[in-house]
């Protein structure tokens, strides 16, 4: 059994569920909306970072990305759905790889488009305040932001496969991102810099002074994601369907 038909099936599964298409739309809508609001906010703060301000919509947008990843996996799990899937594709590793690809590609494309539009919209609001941004920095912000959104979607997908539950994944990740990372994150210790969301968001800043740079930060998030996906793949292969 080759990979392409399995991937096609997985992509079809995502396309044919309105909730998943809705989650992708929400990534775009939430990110651009919050970036637009940030664009017209106060810019006199000395810590003001125009790139992060313009891409601040990524923080709420990642909730939608996480939901997309978790739901794309959990839509397989209810009422014996996974049995149906494995009866059609018994090579579970191949199936999971196809699932991950079918999540990653649309998440990345939507993420890149979202980050680009968010930046454009926010810059329209920020005007002069964002004039110090170089093309290189903006490109890094857009590519990094899109990649970050994809990594968070995959992180959630891996956890959902491991926990065999979309609800458990969301109730773990969303409070973590909203509360733990937000609250203790500002107490900026070196450990919190390595949390999956904190590390990956360095790429959204014009200036950074922590342990991690933009790309090394994204790499740390990618490691978290890889770990979650490996754990998910292990669970998918080992456990009874």
């Amino acid at each position, binding site marked *: *059994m080759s990979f392409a*038909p*399995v991937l*096609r*099936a*997985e992509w*079809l*599964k995502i396309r*044919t*569920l*309105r*909730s998943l298409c809705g989650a992708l739309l929400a990534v775009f809508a939430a990110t651009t909306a919050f970036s637009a609001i940030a664009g017209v906010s106060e810019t006199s703060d000395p810590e003001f970072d125009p790139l992060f301000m313009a891409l601040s919509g990524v923080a709420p947008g990642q909730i939608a990305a996480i939901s997309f990843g978790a739901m794309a996996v959990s*839509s397989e799990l*209810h*009422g*014996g*759905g996974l*049995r*149906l899937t*494995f*009866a*059609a*594709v*018994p*090579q579970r590793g191949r199936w999971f790889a196809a699932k991950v690809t079918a999540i990653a590609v649309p998440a990345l494309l939507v993420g890149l488009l979202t980050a680009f539009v968010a930046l454009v919209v926010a810059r329209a609001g920020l005007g002069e305040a964002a004039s110090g941004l170089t093309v290189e920095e903006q490109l890094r912000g857009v590519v990094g932001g899109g990649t970050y959104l994809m990594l968070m979607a995959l992180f959630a997908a891996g956890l959902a496969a491991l926990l065999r539950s979309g609800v458990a994944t969301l109730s773990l990740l969303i409070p973590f991102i909203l509360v733990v990372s937000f609250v203790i994150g500002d107490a900026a210790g070196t450990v919190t810099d390595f949390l999956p969301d904190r590390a990956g968001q360095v790429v959204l800043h014009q200036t950074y002074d922590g342990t991690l740079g933009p790309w090394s930060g994204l790499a740390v998030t990618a490691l978290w994601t890889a770990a979650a996906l490996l754990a998910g793949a292990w669970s998918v292969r080992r456990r*009874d*369907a």
Partner: protein
Amino acid sequence: MTSIDVQDFTKEYGTRRAVDHLSFRVLPGRVTGFLGPNGAGKSTTMRLVLGLDRPTSGSATIGGRAYATLHEPLHQVGALLDAQAAHGSRTGRDHLRTLAAGNRIPDRRVDELLEETGLASVARRRVRTYSLGMRQRLGIAGALLGDPEVVMLDEPSNGLDPEGIIWIRELLRRLAAEGRTILVSSHLMNETASFADHLVVLGRGRLLADTPMREFIHARVRPRVRIRTSDPTALKAVLARHGHDAEQHEDGHWTVHHARVDDIGRLMSSAGVPVLELAAVEGTLEQAYLDLTASEAEFAAHPSATQPQEA
């Protein structure tokens, strides 16, 4: 030849043994009824055959190969395990397309099956709006997508209306006549009797019987003769003289137990008893099954303990 071979299967959930050293073969060209009370291990066995659950020990092959090694398995094996497995938010047609795509089955085949299972008119409605009977039909359509040699259906008549039950019966007969290997689990005896040629009966995870259905019934239910006469006194006397055990019913007919119609007919004729009606009473699968399960003491004590994996 594509048969299903189950060899010394055992599956334990914690300390509970759901399937216990089970071995049997399902041969092509006939419908094999898979019987047993709830929790006997029928669904577990089907999942093990499909490689969905790992056996504690033992193995199963289809046409000599383990399911997990099959290339695009829907072309060889079709299964309906649970009609509720389809995602409620997809349309029936999209549900089948997602299954078909991974096995390179064209959408044309999907539409063909929607037509064949009588779902064409609701194909573009969401599965959550389907009745149980419609979901069963969708599940059966999914099992037949790849035109497989082996078909396994778990309780396919569940929720079907009378037309649906006749339809599935004829479908199973036709598939078997085409030389396919058909395994159908059920706990409805009369229903199973209407389509099965062969029986595999489980109880508490163990094999209780693996025989042709006719033999199963004949071995367990003694033949009886139904007789009606205008001279009950003479009838009673003749039967008593020959040591037959007869029972009179309210509407006036008699049942002669443990007797063959040929013998009773000859007897009545030679004794000159006027006979209004004389017929052999065939044993039913239900009687035979109850006889078997009654002899299994364990069963009688726990008629149908609820088993989560049977849900």
